[in-house]
């Protein structure tokens, strides 16, 4: 992220504070939901959606991914593909064993 003017930074500081408050609020929400005794699937979906939103906020604003260079997006896109393979391939192997 290329920032030069102090005024620009001050604007970003306000965004950081908003993100911080949102992260704390989402933490409270996810903990509260966990006490609702939801069945496994809705509980997992709710928790993972909230965690993904929180993670996206940290990556986008604290890590400045919202305004980064193309080469970083390219490297991270490749990472996402391999991450998904890592997560889903063992599950495919497992379903294969069950059938």
């Amino acid at each position, binding site marked *: 992220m290329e*920032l030069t003017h*102090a005024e620009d*930074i*001050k604007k*970003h*500081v306000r965004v*950081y*504070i908003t*993100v*911080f408050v949102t*992260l*704390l609020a989402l*933490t*409270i929400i*996810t*903990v509260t939901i*966990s006490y609702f005794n939801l069945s*496994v699937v809705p*509980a*997992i979906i709710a*928790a*993972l959606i*909230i*965690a993904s939103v*929180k*993670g996206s906020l*940290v*990556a986008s604003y*604290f*890590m400045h991914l919202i305004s980064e*260079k*193309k*080469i*970083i997006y390219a*490297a*991270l896109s*490749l*990472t996402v593909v*391999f*991450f998904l393979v*890592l*997560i889903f391939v*063992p*599950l495919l192997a*497992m379903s294969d064993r069950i059938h």
Partner: protein
Amino acid sequence: MEIPYTIKARPDTGLINAKLGIWLFLASEVMLFGALFSSYILLRVGAVEWPHHVLDVPLATVNTAVLITSSITMVMSWASLMMKDFKKYKIYMGATILLGFVFLTIKYFEYSHHIQIGEIPSKSTFFAIYFTMTGLHMLHVIGGMIVNSYFWGPGSKMWKTEPERFTNRIEVAGLYWHFVDLVWIFLFPVLYLL
């Protein structure tokens, strides 16, 4: 020999080398933790039963808040340098290190409690994956604290001679620290809440 592209961006990437370097390192870290999350899914899917709310949720909620707070103090330390305010940088970076200590202290109490009542990795698959994932994360917190402490103390001398380079160093250290926070954001619901 002078290290190239520490202040000016490299023309072909548009980035300073350290920034591209840390992002590539973080990509490898995603795969490291990804492998553990994948193992967690396999273990959980294959388990007959899985414990629910056996860990201390209130304590872990406090720890989550502590890490999130440390993330904002970290980004504020970088913002302070961008605004040429070195005193504020010292305060925010000091707070980040302190919050890292708070996180570790809480984790110490959690671990001691589990060990005291025999909840050790060999007790169950759940505790094995719990100690592995949180232990690896804790090592990352310690690593980040060592780097941050260096930049708070002796490493901060660079501000006087090469302020732009020092600011870039803090941005790179911040990217690592936020990643550590990001991993915890997923560890917390997966291990404590589900």
